[in-house]
């Protein structure tokens, strides 16, 4: 099932996704402010909505500065990588019946592959900056994202087993009667945690850990290149929220309301959860994070896979 109007879908999804990512900057600032007893941006336009526009104008006109000690080409390449990989992942996300860029039969693998490529962005950015804080951030990012990717993939295999496919559209259709969050609750929790780690948001923001590493891997970045990292992070949040919706919450499935509305509702609920996590939690130490990943979450993901496999096998025979 590929979209009847491919060009329209591509342009439409690109514009909508980018607008959501930009709008998230405003949403996050307003929501954080709400939870922190303050106002947040409320001066530019109605409810401060045009703040995003003002920020974008500012960041576009900033001097495009590259530190003289940096590895120039890698330094420029790094922020582009993250935006490109996340945007490419959106190609296989089914928003509603017929609204999808391309319906790959290995869609889920494609997403995981792109997310692995995203690590390069952070590592190369930190490495090419030739700054000790950036380097420490990059090293942390490499270790963190690699470890959490391992069980991120594994946590999804239960869903794949139940749906019998890597195709995201078929996964959504398989949830018509029962969302996978019910039989795969453990997988859902594991994927949520891994997703937060993948997007490097609090409490997993160790690569940039403001109070320790100043800005971590993007310490030396400014202007639009910094903006790319920034938008990349929000795109990542949007992507993980969409994936949770698609994989565990039945995607566009839902009564009464049109499918696209259901999809957006579920997605935004998780985006708000991401922001709430940031408002509420402190940051664990690096070794604690690694211990959690390797010693608790990975075994859990494996156990989940084994049990799901056994159940599917038993039902099949």
């Amino acid at each position: 099932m590929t979209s009847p109007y491919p060009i329209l879908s591509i342009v439409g999804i690109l514009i909508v996704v980018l607008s959501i990512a930009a709008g998230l900057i405003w949403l996050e600032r307003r929501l954080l402010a709400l939870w922190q007893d303050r106002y947040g941006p409320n001066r530019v336009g109605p409810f401060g909505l045009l703040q995003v526009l003002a920020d974008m104008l500012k960041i576009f006109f900033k001097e495009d500065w590259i530190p003289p000690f940096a590895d120039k080409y890698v330094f420029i390449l790094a922020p582009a990588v993250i935006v490109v990989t996340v945007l490419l992942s959106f190609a296989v996300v089914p928003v509603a019946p017929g609204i999808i860029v391309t319906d790959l039969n290995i869609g889920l693998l494609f997403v995981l592959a792109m997310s692995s490529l995203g690590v390069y962005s952070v590592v190369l950015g930190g490495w090419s900056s030739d700054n000790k804080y950036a380097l420490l951030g990059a090293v942390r990012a490499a270790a963190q994202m690699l470890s959490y990717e391992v069980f991120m993939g594994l946590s999804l295999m239960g869903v794949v087993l139940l749906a019998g496919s890597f195709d995201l559209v078929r996964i959504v259709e398989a949830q018509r009667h029962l969302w996978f969050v019910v039989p795969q609750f453990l997988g859902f929790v594991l994927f949520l945690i891994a997703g937060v780690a993948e997007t490097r948001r609090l409490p997993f923001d160790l690569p940039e850990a403001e109070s320790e590493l100043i800005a971590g891997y993007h310490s030396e970045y400014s202007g639009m290149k910094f903006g790319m990292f920034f938008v990349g992070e929000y795109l990542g949040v949007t992507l993980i929220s969409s994936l949770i919706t698609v994989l565990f919450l039945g995607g566009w499935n839902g009564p009464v309301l049109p499918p696209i509305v259901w999809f957006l509702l579920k997605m935004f609920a998780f985006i708000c959860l991401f922001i709430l996590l940031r408002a509420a939690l402190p940051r664990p130490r690096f070794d604690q994070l690694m211990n959690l990943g390797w010693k608790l979450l990975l075994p859990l993901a494996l156990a989940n896979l084994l049990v799901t496999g056994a159940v599917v096998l038993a039902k099949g025979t």
Partner: protein
Amino acid sequence: MTTHTLPHPGVDEPSFTALQNLEGERQVTRDGIETIWVPRERVHETLNHLKNGVERPYKMLYDLTAIDERNRVHRDGQPPSEFTAVYQLYSFDRNEYVRVKTALRDGELTLDTITDIWPAANWYEREVWDMFGIRFAGHPHLERILMPRTWEGHPLRKDHPARATEMGPFRLPPQKEENEQAALRFRPEEWGFARSGEDSDFLFLNLGPQHPGTHGVLRIIVQLDGEEIVHAVPEIGFHHRGAEKMGERQSWHTYIPYTDRVDYLGGVMNNLAYLTALETLAGVPVPPRAQVMRVMLSELFRIISHLVWYGTFAQDLGQMSPVFYTFNDRERAFAIIEAICGARMHPNWFRLGGVAQDLPSGWDAMVLDFVHYLPPRLAEYDREVLRNGIFQRRTKGVGTLTAAEAIDWGVTGPNLRASGVEWDFRKKRPYSSYEQFRFDIPTGTHGDCYDRAVVRVEEMRQSLRIIEQCVRQMPPGAYQSDHPLATPPRKARTMQDIETLITHFLNVSWGPVIPPGEAFGAIEATKGNNGYYLISDGGTISYRTRIRTPSFPHMQTLPMLCRGRMIPDLLAVLGAMDYVLADIDR
């Protein structure tokens, strides 16, 4: 010169017995602290004896400083001296200070180091070298500590200019510029670092002077093996403003606003430390109402300071929201401060002999409102911060300090109490009528970052108790003393008789003339014990103002607390220490 024992405020029995065997001339000071002059060859031996040889020993090196005596006129009964080194010790068993002085003359400005007796002497000796040019033989690293390495002269000497206008115009010829830049270059060996270990090269990370986690201009050079800290050395002095030198320039009265800015989160609490010493020196009594007003405002500032610490500590651990909540609460406290004092962070509100003004009408409702407002908020922060699992994992067992170590390093205040020493100077050596208030001394058991946090949070609750008692029991009467030295003088009778008019005129235009002598006064400030050691030469200006701040010795413990741990732990240790850079550098 006589052996003299004065009755000690707050201590019943005269307990100088152990010291009576000590040879040395005694000096009488206004504060009644036993002061012994010891020849310089015997300083090390005497101090060692006081720490390790006597019954109920003096375990803490409370302060170590010096006096440039060359211009001093009133030195009756003291041995001749050009520079006097002053060691002040404190005994917890006796609840008593002792002061050991030694005279340095004829340009022989060298003493034996006592870093082998007290590790805490390290920074103090460096400071005395930096400020007075007195050398300490055997010191492991006798470098300047507050002034830049390339500074010429020793600022607290009387012949060193106090203002830029007394110095020549500033010039920066190319040669000087090169020298300055060369001095800034980082060479690990100069800091006692090895460049590589057994199987790896170390990474040197410069934390600060501009870093979001250092809360001020503090530089910490961290020697890293991976992310593990091999060694960390704090470099201080970026915030040095010459507060002690300014004391020798401002009149006794006009120095009060400068004290506000020493521990800049402590506000009027700093005034109290200074005035406790000054009032002892001048013999000015403080009326009961003024004393209770001082207590109330000091406790409000303790809460204000702890609220800042609470929010920023959570932020250091990556928790974003609490800082906004605590700052909002702090605003409410500031509203009270503003209503009473007219200013917020630095109200400069206590005066010699009392306070600046009486309380405004409606103050009690405002204060009670706050006393009832804060406890539910604190309970909420407990759930959000102290009971948070990640927070506990980040702070428990991190930066552990035993009671013995804490005392050895001169640690006071909440940091000392977190190590299990139940010692609060408000209770043990009450000042400003603290003896009439009921409150508990919260203590910890492990001396780690978590215990320090718990102690501070509980202290806020105890402060609220004290404030409530202040409101309920505020005595009537004058807010300013009738004593002729009280400043500004009471105006009521100035137009009736000529003597009062003259006193008023002189006290306002020149400032009060304080009789010659020496006095020390200390309080339990927000961060620990804050003491002022004042010397008057019978003028309107202090001859020597020594500020002993709690943050200075606290920061000195940092290398010990974070060795072998990771960078996030370093930030946790810094956050839990609760220091203020101006309190370290003065």
